[in-house]
């Protein structure tokens, strides 16, 4: 069981959360002309690193907020969590 520290609710079990994928993927700016390659990268291409990974989770059975989690994809160790508006370095 993973234990994730929700920035709003504190430490909670993994079962209360649902996963939202890589948090570093940036949506292209829709008010500009966007090359189709940029859309491909946004929609399909993923680094999927082995090691530290910043990802989105939603506290779906709690406060229902989206949060950012920095986690090791090889060991499942969680280093940091943050509100979705905050940066993880």
């Amino acid at each position, binding site marked *: 069981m993973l234990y994730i520290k929700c920035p709003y609710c504190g430490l909670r079990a993994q079962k209360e959360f*649902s*996963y939202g994928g890589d948090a570093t993927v940036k949506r292209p700016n829709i008010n500009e002309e966007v090359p189709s390659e940029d859309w491909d990268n946004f929609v399909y291409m*993923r680094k999927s*690193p*082995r090691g530290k990974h910043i990802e989105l989770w939603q506290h779906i059975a709690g406060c229902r907020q989206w949060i950012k989690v920095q986690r090791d994809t090889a060991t499942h160790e969680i280093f940091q969590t943050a509100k979705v508006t905050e940066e993880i370095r």
Partner: protein
Amino acid sequence: MQKYSVFSLIKNAFSNHQNWEVAWKDPTPKSEYDVVIIGGGGHGLATAYYLAKEHNIRNVAIIEKGWIGGGNVGRNTTIIRSNFMYDANARFNEFGMDLWRNLSQELNFNVMFSPRGIINLAHSDAQMNAYARRGNSMRLNGIDAKLLDREEVKKLIPMADFSDEVRFPIFGGLMQPSAGTARHDAVAWGYARQADDMGVDIIQHCEVTGFDVVNGKIKGIRTSRGDIKAKKVGLCVAGSTNILAEKLNMTLPIETHVLQACVSEPVKPLLDGVVTFGAGHFYISQSDKGEMVMGGDLDGYNSYAQRGNLPTIQHVLTGGLALFPFLSRLKMLRTWGGIMDMSMDGSPIIDKTHIEGLYLNCGWCYGGFKSTPVSGWTFAHTIAQDQVHELNSELRLNRFSTGHLLDEKGLGTKTWIG
């Protein structure tokens, strides 16, 4: 090579089975090969075998970080099927079914291919309609499909919950009678033994640390056991694809996730084929040893750990209990995990890359084992001829930018949901 038969078995019994030849050698890597296959799993071994057998390319090495049979080829739930709706997936896997049917004879190794059928259960009228459509598509591609009503399902799996108070009643199901299971280890060992016999070097405990690419052309690889020159390199590393892609400055439409499976203690034969639950993600079959082999969802987050967490096992088995209440009285023998190369449309990629001489085989999601022979067969063709075969002509990397996706389940890019 020593032929395996009842006579060789009797002959070796006289010497207490002490004088069997080694099944494959343990060579030191040469400095140069025509083709290097990275990844000694089922697909890599099959690729090397078909390169040697179909294309007479025998100066081949397989580079494996771990050992033969230690990765996903030894961790899957051994299901073989071709019950796909889309033409590209159906033709590809039905060609594979033909390879499976003759594999034990071809490899002189009993892979225990056992076509006992797979039943996908439906729990609503809408699901029955969807299965009728899929079954019709399969039959148009020459694949056997049979739509079963509730009574027909009951005859085949009477131990399932057919009571009135069940939350997801069984309406019927779609069956592929020619689907089945095989012994996964034997597939790896059989391919390894034949490939080795035809001159392929199987190099275990050798990690790839980098690539030599000059002017957009592959020249060789760097490994923990020295540099190896190669005219062509094939990547066949499933869940480790992104790690090697990063060394090549490539980004792929792949995420790596952990998938768990489990087996119960062995019991007497009660379940003939493979059954999948239609109201949750759960499938089950019974091994020849009597263990109930079960699996279901991914853990649901990016992971390179070959182990998962208990909440997923609990969730999957909750679905299992809803379908087969008798499971509640079985003890669990063991659980384990393997890392899946989840592609963004749920279908694999077997293609050339923008680097000349570098070929890619990945994106197998949950279902790499069933495609082991056909994946090796088509990948060997792609490498030897430097062009894709008709069978993998729609399994190309550029389909994600051209929009020709093979989203069999129509689930979009959330790989951890599909």
